[in-house]
């Protein structure tokens, strides 16, 4: 079994002018695809775990195998967390839950932005929930994925430098501000009340 790169949910220029076509080209075709290629390489050398789902590999593996599997999963979830029709205030169930957990959308926005821009080094900022739909903001380092800790992801923002350097250079806060113009509330809502297999 070979692992395959899931298709991008939209055209490479669909997130412009917020995120450029150039960024999506490199981020998807080089970084995301690179993790898939590497995982397949490793699977060919050590077929013992090959064929396992990304979630299984994330939960059971460590080191270089974990890094590839987690980064494949993380990036797929990231593309879905963005939408050409995204942005604005949350709607639906997630809006309710945000108010419950954080008081208001603005308060949530401030906390999430702080977590994303303040993360030291490479990693991800996540909105996650527990089994009772209580929301929380967590950040993970490098390839870290919150399902390993038993959280259920709702949204993510990639804060590795490759995610924003072409469009924003060192200005990570500006990139985070842009992320809010693309955030996919529909996807967030679809991640509520689901138990497994978010992809």
């Amino acid at each position, binding site marked *: 079994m070979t692992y395959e790169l899931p298709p991008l949910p939209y055209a490479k220029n669909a997130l412009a002018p917020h995120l450029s076509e150039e960024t999506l080209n490199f981020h998807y075709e080089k970084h995301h695809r690179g993790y898939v290629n590497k995982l397949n390489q490793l699977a060919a050398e050590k077929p013992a775990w090959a064929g396992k789902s990304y979630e299984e590999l994330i939960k059971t593996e460590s080191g270089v195998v974990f890094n590839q599997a987690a980064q494949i999963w993380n990036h797929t979830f990231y593309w879905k967390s963005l939408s050409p029709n995204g942005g604005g205030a949350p709607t639906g169930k997630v809006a309710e839950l945000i108010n419950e957990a954080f008081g208001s959308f603005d308060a949530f926005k401030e906390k999430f932005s702080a977590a994303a821009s303040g993360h030291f*080094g*490479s990693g991800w900022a996540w909105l996650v929930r527990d089994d009772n739909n209580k929301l929380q903001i967590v950040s993970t380092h*490098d*390839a870290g994925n919150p399902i390993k800790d038993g959280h259920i992801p709702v949204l993510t923002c990639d804060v590795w430098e490759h995610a924003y*350097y072409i469009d924003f250079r*060192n200005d990570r806060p500006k990139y985070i501000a842009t992320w809010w113009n693309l955030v996919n509330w529909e996807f967030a809502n679809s991640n509520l009340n689901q138990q497994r297999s978010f992809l």
Partner: protein
Amino acid sequence: VSTQSTGPLHGYHTMFAIARSALRAPVRRTFAASASASVHTLPDLPYDYNALEPHISAEIMTLHHKKHHQTYVTGLNAAEEAYVKAPTPKERIALQAAVKFNGGGHINHSLFWKNLAPTGSPETKLSGGEFKEAIEKAFGSVDAFKKELNTKTAAIQGSGWGWLGYNKATKSLEIVTTANQDPLLSHVPIIGIDIWEHAFYLQYKNVKPDYLNAIWNVLNFKEAAARYKEARSSS
């Protein structure tokens, strides 16, 4: 690579010691009895921003020095100021991550600018002598050394640094890596290579090996030899 020897504060104080020697920051005495935070400043680049072209672009050098390194300096000053004023251990502990991150960033980048030199300059030649012999002894050949340093640096998952370091205990040169902006504490830094994406992305994108090959044209072996000599004499 372990960077801590004894106890939770040891590495922290060692880092401060390295910061003081590597950066020679002036200590300003204030009127407050216990406040003696140093004010760190961005060191000047020893060469023009375009001096490492075509291997490292002027755009990268400018952003790297004026934005990234400056941010670590600003962040370190803020973190140290807050730390000195923090009234309880708990509050000081909460600030340690910021001190380590920004302090490490300042230390690492200060070392980095010095272990690079303009394209074609004599400092970029690894000439025969004690240092070159030590490399050949430790790695077999200069090529083998280059290969090992590049391979281990490229293998870092996430952000970090690849180092040629001098192990004082074993009196040997070794390749070590550090994560994020952790300063190198286990060895004396001889050559550092920044593998954070900001160090190469605009020019090399995801192709780390190309950056790692290119940087060998602008490594300052004269500085490295001097660091090695000092490390040997102070063992």
